[in-house]
């Protein structure tokens, strides 16, 4: 109340990122305390910092809470088929080589239903950035088990605790051939900003996995609390920076997730079979 009174009569400062946001889509769809808004903010800071032109960018999203992120930004957006973000992105990218394409996907969208596309986009080095929001569950459908749900966690479809070992999505991306792979988490906004920005300027298939809080489902069912703060603390607790992890043994790393950059290399990007016909083959990679 006091704060409100203090500001009465004075114009509130306008967030400089507001110009990138679709005002007509507000209020947004995310629950209070959800990490998706933080990812949106981080992405827009990256766009702003790099001076990217949203008019020349296409954002792609399947289905899920994460898939709503691009709905709030002033880009052309493909939305609404679960798991097919990368094929869409591939069609766009192969036809319009100049267009910047960014995919937003939940962990389910990216490596459950979309798992096959994921490994092949990495293998081909599709020139697309994929930002995966790992909230440890299928959020939009109500908190079911997901490929990244920690073993033993209670979800709406694992009432006695998940008996499935989770994926290490970054290791998967790396093994499949992605050329930029990094993991960050919403409690460390600075690192998230740096990695998303780097991903945005990378040429080739980039994967930035963001460990994020879903207080509504994962918090409530798996951790027994819908408090966003508690969930942020939990995420902070399972994160181990890469340089520390290098000195730890597997036993110490059990149940932890390593954050940091795992891959940052350059190799020719995928162009479909026109690539061979194209005399500038490999040029992108050399220039980058």
């Amino acid at each position, binding site marked *: 109340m006091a704060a409100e009174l203090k500001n009465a009569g004075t114009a509130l400062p306008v967030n400089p990122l507001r110009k990138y946001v679709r005002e007509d889509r507000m209020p947004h769809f995310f629950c209070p305390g959800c990490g998706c808004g933080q990812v949106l903010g981080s992405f827009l800071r990256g766009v702003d910092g790099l001076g990217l032109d949203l008019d020349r960018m296409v954002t792609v999203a399947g289905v899920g809470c994460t898939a709503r992120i691009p709905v709030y930004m002033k880009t052309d957006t493909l939305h609404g088929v679960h798991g097919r973000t990368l094929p869409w992105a591939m*069609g766009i990218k192969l036809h319009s080589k100049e267009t910047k394409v960014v995919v937003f996907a939940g962990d389910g969208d990216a490596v459950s239903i979309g798992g096959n596309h994921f490994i092949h986009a990495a293998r081909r080095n599709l020139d697309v950035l994929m930002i995966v929001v790992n909230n440890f569950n299928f959020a939009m459908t109500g908190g079911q088990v997901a490929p990244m749900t920690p073993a033993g966690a209670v979800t709406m479809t694992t009432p006695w605790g998940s008996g499935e070992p989770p994926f290490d999505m970054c290791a998967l991306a790396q093994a499949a051939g992605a050329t930029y792979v990094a993991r960050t988490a919403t409690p460390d906004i600075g690192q998230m900003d740096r990695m998303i920005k780097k991903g945005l300027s990378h040429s080739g298939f980039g994967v930035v996995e963001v460990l994020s809080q879903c207080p509504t489902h994962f918090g409530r069912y798996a951790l027994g609390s819908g408090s966003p703060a508690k969930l942020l603390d939990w995420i902070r607790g399972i994160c181990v920076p890469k340089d520390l992890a290098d000195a730890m043994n597997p036993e110490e790393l059990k149940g932890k997730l390593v954050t940091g950059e795992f891959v940052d290399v350059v190799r020719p990007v995928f162009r479909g079979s026109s690539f061979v016909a194209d005399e500038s083959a490999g040029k992108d990679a050399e220039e980058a």
Partner: protein
Amino acid sequence: MKKEKRVLTGVHFMQGNYAAVEGALAAGCDFFAGYPITPANEISERMSRRLPAVGGVFLQGEDELCSINAVAGASLAGAKAMTATASAGYDYLQEGLEYGVAVEAPMVIVDVQRCRGENFATQADIMQVHWGPAGDHEMIVLAPSSVQELFDFTVRAFNLAEEYRTPVVVLSETTIALMRERLVIPEPDAIPVMNRKWTDKTPETYLPFKADSPWGVPEFAGLGRGYHTIYSINPHDERGSIEWDPDAFERLYTRIPLKVTKNRGKISTVQHWRADDAKAVLVAYGSEVRPCLDAMNTLREQGKKVGVMKIDAPWPFPEEAVADLSGRTDLVVTVEMNIGKYAGEIERACRGRCRTARVTKNRGMIHSPEEILESLKEVL
């Protein structure tokens, strides 16, 4: 790589699958994605060589889901895009078609029908190609009967896709896809090519899903040009904004099927042979038209007044043409290479105005003219 001619004007002796490729190129196809499946493989194989050589992009997807969705993405970016598969792969394509219908993305799909798991001839997909995808829609499906029609109908499929901004299926069959026949490819100028209507409005005034009538087709802007359109499968309003209002829902899901059915007469053309004075008319689509014509000739020689009606585009259903036929003849016989699926539609549209019968065959091979004659003995 040496540049090649896009349109191979001239007389050829060509396989059906190849003819579909040449039709696509003549119509302006510049993106193709496919996943190998017999008996559609030759389409991908020829595309992989021909398309890059005329400046297009070929992609072998990791599966059909990849192919169809890459086609959707390329289409929204402005490409004339196609995929090809056979029945089992078509199961997967339905997901992408659902999306293509909803966001009004022009795209062409060749389905070379085969039996479950094997490559026998069949027309078993006739219902699936229309009603397969979830949601309300009217699919446009063209059914060629010859290698020449595989070329002609593929050109037409691209044109219809562009005109109505919707997926269009070329319903091929093992029989004609793998057959070699004479094919005449006209001069490029003589091939009608239609392009979607690109908007000349500014991003400030453009409404991506606003049409000028309840059955109209919106103007197209394309991705990455500053129009900020959301192409969502979810119900959306004229702005493209995801919208849960029942009125917006109804407007959208009325306009999408209507833009096809309102033009049914133009799209679902039929051809007649000696039907004017016929007491009985054989109705068929695809390869089954061929033995029907043979059977008709034999019966005419015997003095029996029999005609044939060929349905070029089984979907949208040629309601008026069938109704008209049923008022002019005594007997309508549907000839089909499946358990009798489209026959139900034909009989419904005849509405008791004449007798109906079906000659169906489900043995992995096309009817012989003799088989049709034998079956007709009981009804003629």
